[in-house]
């Protein structure tokens, strides 16, 4: 009799569980996604945008160097299509584009999207446009994908991508929310980005007059103002200079903090005077300021101390750092676009000599003397002066590479000017950091102002051929 009880107890216990349908506990699946998740998807899109390492455009150019983190980017003259750096950048740009596409497609499919959903879509449009502007500038012709798909895609002409960038920004100007938090895309941020694009994008979409008009609209609205203290722009978390920034809070994924973390090494070195343990003469792998770049700042320039630093340690080791984004834990934001750029957009769009006023307004705010028309600045060196000012102003902010590229293609003078730029003077003694790349290595044909399409991408999609020239 008790046998029976025991038996029954065992059997019932054993037969109860036979489920094989398990859903992930740390993710939502397509099937369970609802419109209330769109905001979370948008956060994912922002997270992606924040993960784009803007300073790589300074590393590839003549501002920063990063022998450890991004050796191929640093050494871009020798970059091969098999570079894992290039491959990971290609992959991440397209991944975030697809995240934005996915969200835009989902909202487009709604029969009657709510006003809030349209605002969400508009932000995704602007971020997608911003991502495509990077893709076009790094790779030229590239696949233009507006829907999530696995299909093999050919490369679209660069101009088509720029048209899409303009369209996405226009969408943002129309439908994005009004400005309230500089950590999020707003109408005015879209407008600012549009102004930048109309000035710096491909010839087919260039419209200097409209760029100037948009820039002037934003400047004259007085919603944003040039900061009195340059360092505050980067460390005050919410500076009135900035129109759009990625917040980089502690704990945020994809923040640029670690990437720009140059101070740790110096803490080590200055404390014990023996260099940072474990890294030998190369130092740790954070980014450094190109030595020659250090010399571009006038002592009077308020930007100098807030941008670069030169340390000579007790043991004789010298370091040159960028201090705009000093520390991992400081949670300083990454500026995406700020009002100073609109001054320079307006100046450049107006050209010589009309644009000099805006240029000088900025210079004076930064503690420099105004350029004298006809002597300091002429029709011939106008673009060079603009470029120089942009370099000083946006050092480390991810614009330098793009400026070099359009400058190179602006004509013979620009080409000559770019080819003359060197990270190091040839023959300069190695041994002091940084030391990875001796020169910027821009080829005479300028081919390496575009990156190669990664070999892995071509292997998986032969439609991406032909490769960019020179690779």
């Amino acid at each position, binding site marked *: 009799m008790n046998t029976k009880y025991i038996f029954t107890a065992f059997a019932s216990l*054993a037969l109860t569980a036979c489920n094989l349908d*398990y859903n992930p506990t740390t993710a939502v699946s397509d099937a369970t996604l609802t419109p209330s998740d769109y905001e979370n998807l948008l*956060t994912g899109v922002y997270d992606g945008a924040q993960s784009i390492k803007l300073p790589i455009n300074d590393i590839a150019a003549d501002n920063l160097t990063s022998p450890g983190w991004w050796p191929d980017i640093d050494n871009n003259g020798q970059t091969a299509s098999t570079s894992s750096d290039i491959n990971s950048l290609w992959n991440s740009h397209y991944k975030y584009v697809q995240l934005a596409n996915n969200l835009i497609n989902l909202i487009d499919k709604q029969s009657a999207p709510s006003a809030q959903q349209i605002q969400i879509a508009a932000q995704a449009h602007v971020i997608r446009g911003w991502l495509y502007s990077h893709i076009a500038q790094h790779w030229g012709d590239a696949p233009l994908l507006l829907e999530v798909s696995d299909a093999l895609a050919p490369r679209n002409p660069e101009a088509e991508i720029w048209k899409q960038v303009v369209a996405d920004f226009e969408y943002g100007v129309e439908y994005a929310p009004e400005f309230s938090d500089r950590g999020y895309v707003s109408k005015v941020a879209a407008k600012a980005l549009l102004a930048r694009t109309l000035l710096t994008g491909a010839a087919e979409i260039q419209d200097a007059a409209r760029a100037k008009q948009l820039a002037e609209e934003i400047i004259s609205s007085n919603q944003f103002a040039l900061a009195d203290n340059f360092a505050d722009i980067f460390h005050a978390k919410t500076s009135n200079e900035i129109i759009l920034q990625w917040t980089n809070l502690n704990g945020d994924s994809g923040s640029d903090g670690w990437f720009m973390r140059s101070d740790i090494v110096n803490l080590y070195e200055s404390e014990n005077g023996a260099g940072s343990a474990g*890294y030998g003469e190369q130092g740790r792998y954070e980014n450094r300021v190109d030595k020659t770049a250090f010399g571009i700042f006038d002592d009077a320039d308020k930007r100098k101390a807030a941008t670069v630093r030169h340390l000579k340690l007790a043991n004789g080791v010298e370091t040159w750092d960028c201090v705009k984004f000093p520390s991992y834990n400081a949670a300083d934001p990454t500026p995406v676009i700020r009002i100073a750029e609109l001054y320079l957009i307006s100046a450049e769009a107006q050209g010589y000599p009309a644009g000099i006023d805006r240029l000088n307004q900025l210079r004076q705010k930064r503690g420099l003397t105004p350029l004298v028309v006809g002597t300091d600045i002429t029709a011939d060196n106008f673009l060079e002066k603009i470029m120089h000012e942009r370099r000083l102003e946006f050092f480390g902010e991810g614009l330098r590479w793009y400026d070099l590229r359009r400058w190179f293609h602006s004509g013979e003078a620009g080409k000559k000017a770019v080819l003359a730029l060197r990270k190091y003077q040839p023959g300069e003694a190695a041994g002091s950091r940084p030391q990875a790349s001796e020169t910027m290595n821009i080829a005479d044909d300028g081919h390496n102002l575009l990156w190669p399409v990664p070999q892995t991408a071509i*292997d998986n999609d032969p439609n991406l051929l032909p490769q960019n020239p020179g690779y």
Partner: protein
Amino acid sequence: MGIVRAGESPYLCTDDSKKKVTRFKKNKKETGMKKVMIVFLWSVLSSFYNESEAQVIRGSVVNAEQEPLIGVIVKLNSNSKLSAVTNADGQFELNVGKNVKYPVQLQFNYVGYNPYDLDIYEQADNLGTIVLRDKRFSLNNVVVVAYGAQKRKELTGAVSSIDGKELVKNPVTSLEQALEGKLSGVQVTQATGAPGGAVSINVRGTSSISAGNEPLYVVDGLPVVSADLSDVGGYQGNSLSGLADINPNDIASIEVLKDASAAALYGSRASNGVVLITTKKGREGKTQVSLDSYIGFQDIAHKLDFLNASEYVAARNEAIDNYNASLGLTPADATYKQHVTAAVPGADTNWFDEITQKGLQTSHQLTISGGNSQTQFYASGGYYKQEGAIINTGYERYNLRTNIAHQVSQRLNVAANIALSTSNTERATGDNNIYSPWINAISVSPDFSIYDADGRYANVNNSRRNPVQLIKEEPQNSRKYRAIVNLNATYDILPALHYHLNLGGDFNILHERQVWPSTSLQGASTNGDIVDGRAFTFTQLAEHTLDYSHSWGKLALKALGGYSYQKTKLDNAYVEGINFVSPSLIYLDSAGEIAYGGSSAESNALQSLFTRANLNYADRYLLELSFRSDASSKFAAGKRVGYFPAASAGWQISDEEFFPKSSAVNDLKLRASIGYTGNQEGIANYAYHQTYSASSIKYNGKSGYSFPSAKPNPGLTWEKTLQYDLGFDAILFNRRVEVVFDWFRKDTHDLLLSHSINSLSGYSTTTSNVGNISNSGVELAVTTHNLTGKFKWDSRFNITYTKNKVTELVQNAQGEQPYITTGFCNILQVGQPMASFFLIRADGIFQSKEEILAQPGGQALWDKGIRPGDVKFFDKNLDGVINSEDRVVCGSPFPKVFGALSNSFSYHDFDLSIDLQFSLGAKLYAAWKANGTGAGNQGGHANGYAILREEWDNRWTESNPSGSAPRAVAYGAAYENNITNYTSRYLEDADYLKVRNVSLGYTLPAAAVKLLGVSKLRFYATVHNLYTFTAYDGFDPEVTLFPNRTTYRGYDSGSVPQLRSFVFGINLTF
């Protein structure tokens, strides 16, 4: 009357023997599970005597060959003084007197034979012939197989077994060590000598790229968690064994199911073989108490010898002189280098000695077992402690096991097996990590001191860290709490039909802490950093089986059918705190800031049906068919179910009429099998779901959704292996030689492979079932009885040859199958062995200027300062530049041949065993010698790393042009050339012959034992890993960086070697 069979194992309760013991009943007390005796009793039970007459019991005793056994002691009851001894004809007469009361028991004892007890229930004067079985032959032993047990004689699959008694005799510290070198086809690689560290076990080669190559472990019918669960610790390059909690002293037997026929009943988890562990059970009879204890110490058998401080400085200066001379530099030149002096004058530190120790090793186990006819129990408590070879490391384990069986009624038997354990591993940061004390100790140069003038830990050279500081200031530990529990019941529905229920659970709790106080190197930048992680893993099993047996004359059928459901849940959490108020407060309460915290949970389940039928005709023709279907939650609904059929046949050819009866071949069985098995390890639990993950997706303090990095593949399914096996079991030369031979082939297809995809989709990789691997080989196990007299000598030898080849990989868009890089220097390439080394080939040392100029770009090399004595590399593409484009396939990290030879001797009360183990054909990349990646750059002979004396003494000089190491040169192109990484210069043969175990034991004679009032007392002394014969330069040729990754192999970044241990122990039974 006919033959009476008695003494079957309790596992074979359906055998006819049970029914026939009405008159002679085998005493259960002495029935070991493996100790099966078959007695052929020619009964002449005709006479009934008058009770008052004095009674004599007669009989004769023979061995299996029907030869009479002389001198067998036949004793009446254990407490009586009546006994007899067999004569030259094997006959005995035992006068049991007038008043003997039945039942009585006759006990037969003969050295080298299984003892045999016979219960006699009524008067009998002639027992006929009694056959005693030679202990040494295992053919009649029972082996545990999937869901049951079989006599080895009836086995048609490839199964190897180890008797648990061996494990107590010469103590082993872990289950893995128990398997080491014991079985053909089973390759055990200890990843590290660090206590509690993980081990890799491969059964018949490696058949998977990313789904794991470890076998399935089943303890008393419960598939247990064997993976390395140490997330946090694993990250630090130091893995923990998931099997270390299982107390080897509690193991009654280990069976390894090798071929498809043996393993297919475990279906989708069986491709890498199945290890069945059976724990000890109690037996009816007098309660036995035994104590098994040992104590000893461990150390590192083979130390590396490095130059001391003054030699080191002299070596550097020689390298500097060579540099200056090669380039013709004079002190006036800017690039001229001056001599160096010791970094800390007077310092001469042997870093290795500073962080190593002789570690105590001790183990104590108390076992009580016994029971009556209704209830039997086995209870044990064990304690094991091991101090590591590195100071401040160690392993400590407490075990408790209770196995109880109870007969509820005639038809219902229940049993419970409960094992509890807790262990603590004090760890050091492990291999392949810049903070590893071990790696730093073998690379920091000797001219630094441990402490500075203020008594603080001193800094060492820029590229290294103070090893003493690392081991003393950064404690890490892993505590494990584990319960392996199962309850089972057997109900006899009909005499031949039994229902069996098995419910089990394996509970794992892991608690890991890593502490980097603010004073430590790693914790300085964050003012202290402490990680506290917990992982819970729980697997539960419910299984119902029915078995049935029936015979029709000579044809016997055994059938089995079952249903099983197993669910596994994993639950992890960890918190990291920084900014500690004081370095001595090491709990998160004192953290100024919680830097990170996270938790996750996952589940999977497997639902299965299985069936097996065994047909046996006259013990001559054997056929086994089995089939399993598995449905796994890891796959999408339509892809969920897999089928795993297998068939095998055996032919006991020596029993055939036509087979010549000779003493050369006593017994011969041919076997063949074919079948499918699967592998679903390594497939993520939710890999098929299209998901958005919120893990680590955060913007402006808010979590969001993103695509996971790998594209989900709803078509994923398990890897499948088609296996063939042909083999034979033979007993030869008057039963002195026992041979088991197998040829096997395993073709694995649908290999799981993570590969890159068109990244425009938003994903850059996906995992799919592409690729094939083929393994084949032969295995041979030979047991011989060389001397069988008073002085006994037995040998066991096994050898395995395996060949492994990648036969297909993923195609790219061009239709090519490019090689896949899987480790620092391992690749997968079609046509090559798995994880082949892909390196720049070093072609020796330049001997002359002409030889340099003959290289592609030779003049440029010369101009840069390359000189005789520098390393010559093979410039595959002849471009004058040595780089990764010049790599070629240079060998395999897996041995071609491995095996072992054990010899055991006994003379009177002494026993001695010597176990040797060997491995041939594997290569090992000595990364610890190479620059930048491993421990140091002994290869460069300069620049701040310790210098290995052997390398230094073998360096090329003009007077030693045959030196195998390059010349010393401190800077410039020659230095860079000589330390070029990923070259075959660092690839060495890992062949070895190890004296694995030497053990000498002494058992007290019966008289002495009696005096002490105990029933058995044995003393022994054992040396484990006594010596390794090898040409490998490092500590130990048997290491691997990531034991669980077969595609990342043969890489020695400076692993802690296996330790040599000396122990002294006793086995005491009351």
